[in-house]
């Protein structure tokens, strides 16, 4: 693999216009995401924010960081990083979001403030069990 590509003795220079357009798009997206955050959309706010952030990150990676034009191996490295981060988040959440499935605990929580406790109690802390 990686046959030496002799014809590329000079770097691939992107036109100035591309950089300016990308920078402009990034600024516009920033304004959009801030504006949307003031609109109450419930859970969708988080999705929109992360979606726009990903779009911006993709623009930076593909154009500013030249991944679109560079050797494919570098793009692969970048995608590997993202996929293993996804694995980390996903497998951890498989635990943290599904705790207490079998054990219904009817006692009051030990520390009502402890956020980790929320999913393992059946009743909210303020109701008394009889």
């Amino acid at each position: 693999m990686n046959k030496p590509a002799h014809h590329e003795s000079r770097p691939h220079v992107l036109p100035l216009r591309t950089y300016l357009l990308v920078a402009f798009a990034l600024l516009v997206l920033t304004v959009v995401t801030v504006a949307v955050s003031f609109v109450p959309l419930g859970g969708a706010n988080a999705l929109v924010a992360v979606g726009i952030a990903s779009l911006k990150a993709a623009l930076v990676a593909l154009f500013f960081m030249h991944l679109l034009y560079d050797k494919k191996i570098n793009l692969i490295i970048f995608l590997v990083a993202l996929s293993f981060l996804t694995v980390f988040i996903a497998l951890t959440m498989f635990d943290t979001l599904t705790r207490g499935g079998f054990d219904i605990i009817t006692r009051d929580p030990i520390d009502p403030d402890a956020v980790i406790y929320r999913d393992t109690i059946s009743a909210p802390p303020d109701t008394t069990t009889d």
Partner: protein
Amino acid sequence: MDTTFERSYLKTPKGLASWLFTLDHKRIGLLYLFGIMGAFLIGGVFALLVRLELFGPDKTLMDADTYNQFFTLHGAIMIFMFIIPSIPATLGNFLLPQMIGARDVAFPRLNLLSWYVYIFGSVFAVYSIAAGGVDTGWTFYTPYSTESTGAVISMTLGIFILGFSSIFTGLNFIVTIHKMRLPGLTWYKLPLFVWGLYATAIIQVLATPVLGITLLLLIMERTFGIGIFDPAMGGDPVLYQHFFWFYSHPAVYIMILPGMGIISELIAVFSHRRIFGYKAIAYSSLAIAFVSFLVWGHHMFTSGQSELAATIFSFLTFLVGIPSGIKVFNWLATLYKGKITLDTPMLYALSFLFLFTIGGLTGVFLGALAVDVHLHDTYFVVAHFHYVMMGGTVMAFLGGLHYWWSKMWGRHYSERWAKITCALIFIGFNVTFFSQFFLGAKGMPRRYYNYLDQFQPLHAFSSVGSLILGAGFVVMAVYLIFSIFKGRRAGTNPWGAMTLEWTNPTPPPPENFTEPPRLEYGPYDYDRVAVERTDT
């Protein structure tokens, strides 16, 4: 008389400074060798002290706090300062460029920096012994590690720094393998040791940063109480375990994959036989590297993670066993119709096959959910991971060290003493650790300073084994050091091997190859070309 010696990397240039500022991957490999041998000595002494204390119940030598510090230091030093850098940073550094016909690794300065970072991190880690010791176990579980009064911060900082050294080595190797290969040396013509190093390096760069952030968060937890891991501040100790094992499980494969690479070389050379199933062995390394990231939760089946997560992790754990099994069977098949010579490196390779199979099979016990509940945190686990780490990685490392010893130093060790030592280590190891499978299944929990009388005979047996093991390593140190100065002069290719590093002079010149290496045959073409042993 010996112009090869005078022109070799060992003698040109001369002087201490030329070693301390060397950019030569071979010298850096040797610097690492001295570093990890120092770590192995310290870690080994702690191991022997721990085993002596456990000879009988109650107090034998030391009090509980000292014992807790000793097993913590044994674990932390052996893992972070010895076994993780052991094969890649010493043999890998020394051999990788030679095996792919390159003059050096891609980033020689980064390579030297990684050694200094290693020493710097080790100094922090060893300093923590003086600064009150650490008694948390090498896993630093919260909230014990946030409450402990020991020198947890200096130890974790040391390990954080050691992580950079590991990352630099991995980064260097990946780029080297991609970009520095001799023209014409395609991926499928690479020696399997290079594939092993490649898979290892991938894990090093992917997993080590997570260890870094875990330890940083632990330090912040101790200094600021930020409340992510400490239940007293509203955090979750089980989340710490997720973070920790996301690194530390793949780290197990950082340790074993390069060992498997060495075994592939040894089995092929000493059977004088084309390796069986080259592609299967190569790809299984990558498969192990990938799946190793999906299984960390099997360290946590009784930790309070959800049943769903435990089930997923258990299933994925079994997947990682399959490529390991494939490797073992392929090695066995390589012996078939070979010409097997039982030189010392081969004895270590065969020991590896024997011990690693036991380690792997007992791993299946621990992957099975219900059985793990009984065996978790007992001596069964201790025995299992020593069979994999010591019976696997250390045996492979010793095999590789003996195999390439003449390449490194230009001299042979005493074959007779080497065989006696190999037998001592093999016997000592099995006496020490096989007994621990029984201890664990009987219910003896690990990290116990004191224990009930019913466990005493097996503990005493295990302790005796550890002394045999220790004696083996002392003898090895003596004959190896002796050989550097007085050993018989070695020839270019004493084993009749086909990989590129045996085509250059022994010991190699600083630039590795005096003339551009030629690819006349592949690394395992024993069925096409008759290579003779050349030894003086």
